[in-house]
């Protein structure tokens, strides 16, 4: 059952005299209890897509197209309708735990207010709900932490609090935007473990956004690869990781450090830069950086072709199996 259906979503910002395109026509579905990983470099549009869904676009940004969540259209929805869904059925965790919590309110009250707003309970019972959640996300000394301020917690703990805050109302879908990027590696794996076990417990769908394929590989059922505001490849995790069709995906895979492979003297990297979001050149956006580029690639933009087992790719010359 599809809970999130994005159809031809376009997001752009108007700056002075130029229009910057962040998302250039993306269609995507997320089924219940499914985990979809969205991979791409900065500027690929992966974050803006979901900011548009949540109604959190910066002023000056506009979204067009359709985003339906559990049947309700989110784009252009009125504030009241959006607020019924946000924080309760549809939740989001951001990448910067250090600045994402309100500095002058206690951790406990920031958790409790979610329950008070959405579940309509009183503050005292919301506080016990908050305590239970802190224990579930394995924050040590939970009772003491409730009364503390965000700056008294480490980055890893703050991210746990953020995740707990998102899960308070048993959401159907959790969007995690680079949840581990700002944390160190040991803490990263802890947070990923937490997401995995919470997902099992609650049975919710997860959208995991990251620039790091390695992070996504551990959790995702399906992976979507984005480049320059468009989807270039999507499929099951197995298909993407072992049978990548798009040269960009292959390059990304090569960039993941491998402890078991032969020892390299140089870390592989992709030459060049993603295209300027203010332009709209013809042809494939990846052409300037592609090792297999042809004339056709530069002139004609490939569309997304869906193959067996829903493995889709947007390339004129997909890589052989």
């Amino acid at each position, binding site marked *: 059952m599809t809970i999130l259906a994005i159809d031809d979503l376009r997001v752009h910002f108007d700056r002075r005299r130029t229009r910057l395109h962040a998302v250039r026509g993306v269609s995507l579905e997320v089924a219940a209890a499914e985990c979809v990983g969205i991979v791409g470099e900065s500027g690929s549009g992966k974050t803006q897509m979901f900011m548009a869904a949540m109604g959190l676009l910066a002023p000056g940004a506009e979204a067009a197209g359709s985003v339906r969540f559990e049947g309700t259209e989110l784009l252009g929805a009125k504030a009241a309708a959006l607020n019924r869904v946000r924080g309760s059925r549809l939740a989001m965790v951001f990448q910067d735990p250090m600045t994402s919590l*309100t500095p002058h309110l206690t951790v406990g009250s920031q958790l409790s207010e979610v329950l008070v*707003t959405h579940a309509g309970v009183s503050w005292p019972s919301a506080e016990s709900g908050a305590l239970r959640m802190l224990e579930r996300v394995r924050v040590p000394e939970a009772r003491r932490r409730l009364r503390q301020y965000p700056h008294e917690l480490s980055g890893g703990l703050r991210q746990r609090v953020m995740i707990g805050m998102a899960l308070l109302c048993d959401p159907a879908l959790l969007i995690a935007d680079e949840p581990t990027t700002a944390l160190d590696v040991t803490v990263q794996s802890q947070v990923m473990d937490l997401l995995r076990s919470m997902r099992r417990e609650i049975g919710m769908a997860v959208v995991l956004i990251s620039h790091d394929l390695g992070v996504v590989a551990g959790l995702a059922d399906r992976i979507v690869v984005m480049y320059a505001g468009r989807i270039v490849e999507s499929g099951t995790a197995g298909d993407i990781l072992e049978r990548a069709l798009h040269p960009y995906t292959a390059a990304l895979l090569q960039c993941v450090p491998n402890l078991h492979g032969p020892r390299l003297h140089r870390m592989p990297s992709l030459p060049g830069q993603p295209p300027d979001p203010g332009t709209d050149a013809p042809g494939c956006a990846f052409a300037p950086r592609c090792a297999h580029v042809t004339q056709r690639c530069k002139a004609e933009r490939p569309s997304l072709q869906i193959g067996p087992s829903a493995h889709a790719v947007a390339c004129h010359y997909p890589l052989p199996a």
Partner: protein
Amino acid sequence: MTRYFLKRLAGAIPTLFIIITAAFFLMRAAPGGPFDQDQTLPPEILANLQSAYGLDRPLWVQYGRYLDALAHGDFGPSFKYKDFSVTELIGQGFPVTLELGVVALCVALTIGIPLGTFAALRHNSAADHATMAVAVIGIAVPSFVVLPFLALVFGLYLRWLPVAGWEPGSIRHLVLPVVALSLPPLATVARMTRGSMLEVLRSHFIRTAFAKGLPLHTVVLRHALRPALLPVAGYLAPAVASIMTGSLVVESMAGLPGIGRYLVQGALNRDYTLVMGMVIIYSTLLIAMGLVVDLLYLWLDPRIRFGR
């Protein structure tokens, strides 16, 4: 936290002491004296007067006696208003000035902050531009121009409010002076709040608050307001200084029997004790305001509590 406050209090007292001492010696060291403006008096009478007021003693003795009197709440006799002591004059006028100032400050804050917030929420709309345009007028035009203009319109032409004068406990007489006095700080507070609110609304934690599905009024009042008010808290002491300054003019124009006129008159008459008394009162007020602002900072941003 109380330790921090006590430390600040301990720092404030020497400041006040220095101000009193500096003022005292500066006054005495200056050429001329309080009796110069009177018609030339025969030297014996002048000597008697000086002796009666203790002006013939060595400076150190005078200083000591002054401090001693201060400790007992006695500011000394006024040299010009011969029937009154400075303490009495202050006692008569201070409540009026205090009332005027406090009301003006409250008006500036209770209207300025919501106005600035409103403008920030309606950023770049007609309402925003209109509010900011009015704010510029408030900042640019001095209170001694605003007050007469208001008095003419509302007092003489419309006859809604009295033009000037004062009765104890009267509100009507306070309206125009308060409006004129509060306008500049109100405008500044509105502009500051707007700018600060716009910045805070771009913060990550506000994005989180919206993502939690909190309604707009909760996000603004519970999450955005306190950080946005930090610069306004910093402006409180200058605002009080501005109101104190403005009250000198407003009191005389509106015929309010406050202490402002004593300061000016005392200056023109070279009435030592009166001016000293005024300086002490005003300095104490300002220093007290500084302490209040410190306390306010602690409440607004808990991170400061821990000295970060």
